[in-house]
């Protein structure tokens, strides 16, 4: 016990002596540190085991993209096939359709969704009544915690063919709205659902940024004769710049992942032509049709491109003098 409790105190010394001693430090030092930290290591163990098995074990499983995976042989014993899976994948029109759908849907959602939390945050921030603001916030945060299954069910119930709007406003001469299952309206519907579910939650970070703006700036510029619009343009927007860039960059890295659950739930209603994205392609081709290697290749392709996008986006952020997501 006494050794363990000494731990954190002895720690700064260990860090200081690290550079010279790294190579020649006797083995017992490590053993001593292990002994000192044994309680912490024990606390760490379950988490580390989880990450090793379910994250890194799974990461290793990606090798089946280069194998002809046979379930009864297992990952290790299945024969290597080089890039054959990728050749098959890139020769499939269905995959390229899914990839195109993914990117287009991502961009459409970004363009139409992104400004709305910002606008809502500005509106909420401008309210003088704390009570009204709290109430509206409680209400608009709520859908974030509702599952996609329920969101889709709610949308069907309200704007579906037999839904409330058709029933009360459509009259006898047919449907006013016929959104569910109409391929032309797939993208607008996806955007609407996303806005409904996430736009309130999306305001949190903007509201925090708005709260950090120095009131003195507004006061000074107001005394200098700047009206509300000028103040908005010259103080509010520049103050939000960093946050806006950060969020845009995060989205850029995510461009190949558009709401998997949301789309999986509605893919069958709209058909794979409009509603197939890379993630649903992987699910249907890999797990449903047992086309393991090709689907794994699709997922790996997506993962590598996605990681490259994150790197690129972060580089761009640094070039533009912003903090970026990481250093």
């Amino acid at each position, binding site marked *: *016990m006494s050794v363990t409790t000494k731990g954190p105190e002895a720690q700064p010394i260990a860090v200081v002596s690290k550079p010279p001693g790294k190579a020649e430090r006797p083995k017992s030092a490590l053993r001593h540190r292990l002994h000192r930290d044994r309680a912490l290591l024990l*606390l760490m163990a379950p988490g580390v085991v989880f990450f090793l098995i379910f994250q890194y074990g799974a990461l290793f499983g990606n090798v089946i993209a280069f194998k002809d995976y046979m379930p009864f042989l297992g990952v290790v014993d299945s024969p290597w096939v080089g890039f054959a899976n990728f050749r098959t994948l890139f020769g499939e029109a269905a995959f390229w359709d899914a990839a195109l759908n993914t990117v287009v849907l991502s961009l459409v959602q970004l363009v139409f969704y992104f400004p709305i939390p910002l606008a809502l945050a500005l509106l909420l921030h401008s309210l003088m009544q704390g009570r009204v603001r*709290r*109430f509206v916030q409680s209400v608009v945060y709520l859908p974030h915690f509702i599952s996609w299954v329920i969101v889709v069910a709610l949308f069907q119930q309200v704007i579906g063919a037999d839904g409330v709007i058709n029933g009360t406003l459509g009259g006898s001469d047919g449907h006013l709205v016929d959104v569910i299952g109409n391929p032309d309206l797939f993208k607008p519907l996806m955007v609407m659902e996303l806005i409904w579910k996430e736009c309130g939650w999306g305001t949190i970070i903007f509201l925090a940024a708005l709260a950090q703006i120095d009131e003195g700036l507004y006061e000074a510029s107001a005394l200098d004769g700047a009206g509300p619009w000028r103040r908005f343009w010259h103080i509010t927007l520049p103050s939000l710049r960093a946050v806006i860039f950060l969020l845009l960059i995060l989205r850029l890295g995510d461009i190949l992942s558009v709401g998997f659950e949301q789309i999986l739930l509605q893919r069958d209603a709209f058909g794979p032509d409009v509603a197939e994205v890379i993630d649903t392609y992987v699910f249907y081709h890999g797990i449903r049709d047992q086309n393991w290697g090709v689907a794994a290749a699709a997922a790996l392709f997506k993962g590598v491109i996605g990681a490259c996008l994150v790197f690129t986006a972060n580089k761009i952020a640094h070039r533009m003098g912003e903090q970026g997501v990481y250093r």
Partner: protein
Amino acid sequence: MSADVMQRAERPAWMEEPRPITQGFKGLTLVFTVLVVIVPFWVVLATSFAPDKQVIANGGYALWPDRWTTNAYDLIFSGGQITRAMLVSGGVTVIGTTFSLVCTIMLAYALARPGVVGGKPVMLLILFTFLFPAGMIPSFLVVNGMGMRNTYWALFLPVLINAFNLVVMRGFFQGIPAELFESAKIDGAGELRTLVTIVLPLSKAVIAVVGLFYAVGYWNDFFRAILYTDQATMWPLQTWMRTYVVQSQNSLISVQGGVSEQIQFAPQTVNMAVVVLATVPILCVYPFIQRYFTKGVLTGAVKS
């Protein structure tokens, strides 16, 4: 809720009184926003309590029940498939959240202590998973390889620790003043004791938020059951809803093996009652945890 928030804030002297048209526009926008969120919930609630005749006559919904009836709920709670699905959902949520919270707290606490052996490589290992998350197929192979398919373990173990939640928690622990750890040490407390008696009581906010995130994640998940189980008896509520509500397969037959007397129920009332029941737990915890949202979420946003 503190009194200063409840009061009407003073408008600073330099700020202009907004024009009536601006105020009107703001008011309308807010009312519209709130209605857009609330009305769908109301429709579902009203439909679930409406008599089936009315729902059928309307074509599948009710805005105001002619007569409030709990027939749909009685049917659900009579011990059929849906009752079972609700038990599965509740069990997975409670057990999964407990396991997740305990493991996340332990790992976050160890990683938050400066200079622990292996702390840095483990943190890098975890941050790396943000860049390369485990994919669906490899995860499936792992779960399959461990023989966890068609067990309830598969519904929570593969997502036991969320890296984002871990980073949030670690950030919070790191913000606790070092003097507290030192005084605990002087009093002779070991790490576990420090964690339980000093750190946990100070971290209620972050534990509440992270716990809610885990619980909501487990409660809302429909996909892991599809991926990892073959039998519908293991389905949680959301998976059941996906099949019978969203994909509109007739739930009437499956409620209780198609007993003929139940034909009189409009499936839509039952479906909507299930939606209500799936929403209620979230509505119940939400008000208690809501005040911690901003704090918890922002800690995470700043740290990552």
